[in-house]
C-alpha cells in the first residue's frame, strides 16, 4: 500500500516550557479533505506550520507523502501548497503579478504557466480583476487569490490555515465549493477552521484542544460520540428559557444556538415533564423536538466545561 498523504506520528511542539502540541498522531489519506477544528490556542497553527516544514518538531515525526519534514524540506515544499492564516500576498502587485511571482518562486515551467493561470482564473473567477492591485480586492477575493497562489505549482497536498477567517457567509460558501472542486481533481486537502459548519463539509475531521486531539473520524462518527439525549427548544424569550433549563435537575447542559436552545439531559424526559416545564416557565417554553447533535454540540461538550 502507498504511503498516506500525511502521516503524523506522536508529534509534539514546545515553546520553552509551554507545550503547544502534545503527542498528536493522525493519518490523512490521499485525496481526502481533512478538517482540523479547535479553539484559538489549541495548537492548530503549530501543527500546520510543522507540516509545511516551517517549524521543527520537538518530538515525533511528520511524513508528507513519505517525506520527513525534518529532513526533506525542499522536496516537500515542491509538492505542498500552503495558504497561511494571514494575508501573505503583495498588496501593491496586481492579481496577475502576484500569480506570476509565485510561479517564478515555485519554478513553474514557462510552457505550463499560461495554462495553469487559465485554470486558476477559471475556478477563482478572478480573470476580470487580473489587473487590480491585491490591496484593492474584497476579503473574499483576497482569499481566492491566496488560494490560487498556493496552487500555482499544482501541489499534491494543499494545506490551509483558517482560510475563511473574517470572510462573509456568501464568499465562505463559494470558497468551500472551490475546495470541493480541487478535491475532485485528486488533491489532498488539510484545512483548519473555527467554523463548525465547515467541519461538516470534510471527509474526516479531528477536534483539537489544548494541544491534543480529543476526537476524530468522519463528521457522522464524531457527532455520534455525543452521549446525551438532546432537544431543540424554542420559546418567547430564549435567554430566559435557557436560564430556566439551567435550573432543572435532569439537565446536563444548555447552549444558545441563535434561534433555539439546545438542551441535553442526563435522562430523556417524559412527555409529562415537558407539560410541567411549559407551566413552570410561565408558558415561555413553546416547542421542543429531538435534535441530532451538531459539530458545535460535540465541540462545546468536549471543551465547554473548561474554565477560562
Amino acid at each position: 500500500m502507498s504511503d498516506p498523504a500525511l502521516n503524523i506520528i506522536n508529534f509534539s511542539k514546545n515553546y520553552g516550557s509551554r507545550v503547544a502540541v502534545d503527542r498528536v498522531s493522525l493519518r490523512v489519506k490521499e485525496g481526502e479533505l481533512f478538517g482540523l477544528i479547535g479553539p484559538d490556542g489549541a495548537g492548530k497553527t503549530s501543527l500546520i506550520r510543522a507540516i509545511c516544514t516551517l517549524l521543527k518538531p520537538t518530538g515525533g515525526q511528520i511524513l508528507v507523502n513519505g517525506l520527513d519534514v525534518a529532513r526533506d524540506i525542499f522536496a516537500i515544499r515542491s509538492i505542498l501548497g500552503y495558504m497561511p492564516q494571514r494575508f501573505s500576498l503583495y498588496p501593491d502587485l496586481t492579481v496577475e503579478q502576484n500569480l506570476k511571482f509565485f510561479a517564478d518562486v515555485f519554478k513553474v515551467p514557462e510552457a505550463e504557466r499560461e495554462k495553469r493561470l487559465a485554470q486558476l482564473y477559471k475556478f477563482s473567477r478572478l480573470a476580470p480583476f487580473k489587473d487590480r492591485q491585491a490591496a484593492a480586492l474584497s476579503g473574499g477575493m483576497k482569499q481566492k487569490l491566496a488560494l490560487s497562489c498556493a496552487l500555482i505549482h499544482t501541489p499534491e497536498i494543499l494545506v490551509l490555515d483558517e482560510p475563511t477567517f473574517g470572510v462573509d457567509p456568501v464568499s465562505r460558501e463559494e470558497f468551500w465549493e472551490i475546495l470541493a472542486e480541487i478535491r475532485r481533481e485528486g488533491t489532498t486537502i488539510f484545512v483548519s477552521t473555527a467554523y463548525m459548519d465547515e467541519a461538516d463539509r470534510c471527509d474526516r475531521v479531528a477536534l483539537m484542544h489544548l494541544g491534543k486531539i480529543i476526537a476524530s473520524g468522519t463528521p457522522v462518527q464524531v457527532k455520534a460520540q455525543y452521549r446525551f439525549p438532546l432537544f431543540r427548544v424554542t420559546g418567547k424569550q430564549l435567554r430566559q428559557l435557557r436560564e430556566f433549563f439551567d435550573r432543572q435537575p435532569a439537565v446536563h447542559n444548555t447552549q444558545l444556538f441563535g434561534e433555539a436552545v439546545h438542551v441535553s439531559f442526563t435522562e430523556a424526559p417524559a412527555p409529562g415533564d415537558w407539560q410541567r416545564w411549559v407551566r413552570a416557565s410561565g408558558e415561555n417554553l413553546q416547542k421542543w423536538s429531538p435534535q441530532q447533535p451538531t459539530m458545535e454540540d460535540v465541540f462545546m461538550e468536549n471543551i465547554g466545561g473548561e474554565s477560562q
Partner: protein
Amino acid sequence: MTNQVSVQTRVSIRVGKGEIFGFLGANGAGKTTLIRMLCGLLLPSDGQGTVAGFDIYRESEQIKRNIGYMSQRFSLYEDLTVEENIEFYGGIYGLNDEAIRKKKTQIFAELKLTLRAKTLTRDLPLGFKQRLALGCAMLHEPSIIFLDEPTSGVDPRVRRAFWDVIHRTADHGTTVFVTTHFMEEAEYCHRVCIMDTGKVIALDTPENLRQRFQQPTMQKVFVELVKSRIGKRI
C-alpha cells in the same frame, strides 16, 4: 425610547437606546465605512446623521466622548499589561485616578480579567484580548458602543461568553451596534440590518426576517438575499 443613532445617506437607520443592533453585509458592503462615519472618524459625502444626539458633521468631538469603539484590530498596547492598558485608556478619556481604580475593579470582575491583570497583553489568548478591548472601549461609560467584527477568529465557547457580556451591557441601557460574519450571532440581536453595495436591503427583527423570507435561519436569509442581488450588482 429616544433615538440614539440616525443616519441618512443612501442608508437610513434609527437605533434605539439599549438596543443590540446587528449590522450584516458581505465583505466590501460598506459596514466599516458607515461605522467610521458614526464614530466621527470619517465625514459623509452627503446626508445627515446624529449619534447620541450629536451631529456627525459639526459635533464629532462630542460624539467621540459619548461612544466606545472596538475596532477589528483591537488597538491595544501589546507591551503593556492588562491593567496598564486600562490605566492608559482611562487617562486618555480624562478619568482621574480614583475613577480609574473603580472602573478597573468593576471591569475586571465583569469581564473575568482579574487573574490576568499583570499579564502582558501580547501573551493573552485572543478571547481575553477581545474582552480587554471591550473593557477599554467602555471605560468612559459611553451611551453607545460600536463593535466591528468583535468575534472574528474566536471559538464557539469564547463567542458565547462574549455575547453574554454584550447582553449584560445592553441590559444596563447601553446601545450596542455590532457587525459580524457569524449569522448565528445575528439571531442574538434585537434588530438586524443587511447591507449590500452601500444599500440597506433588509432591516427588521431576526424573527420577522426569517418569516418574511421563509428561511429557518439567519444564515439562510443572508445567503439567499445577497445571492439574489449578485446579478443586480453588475
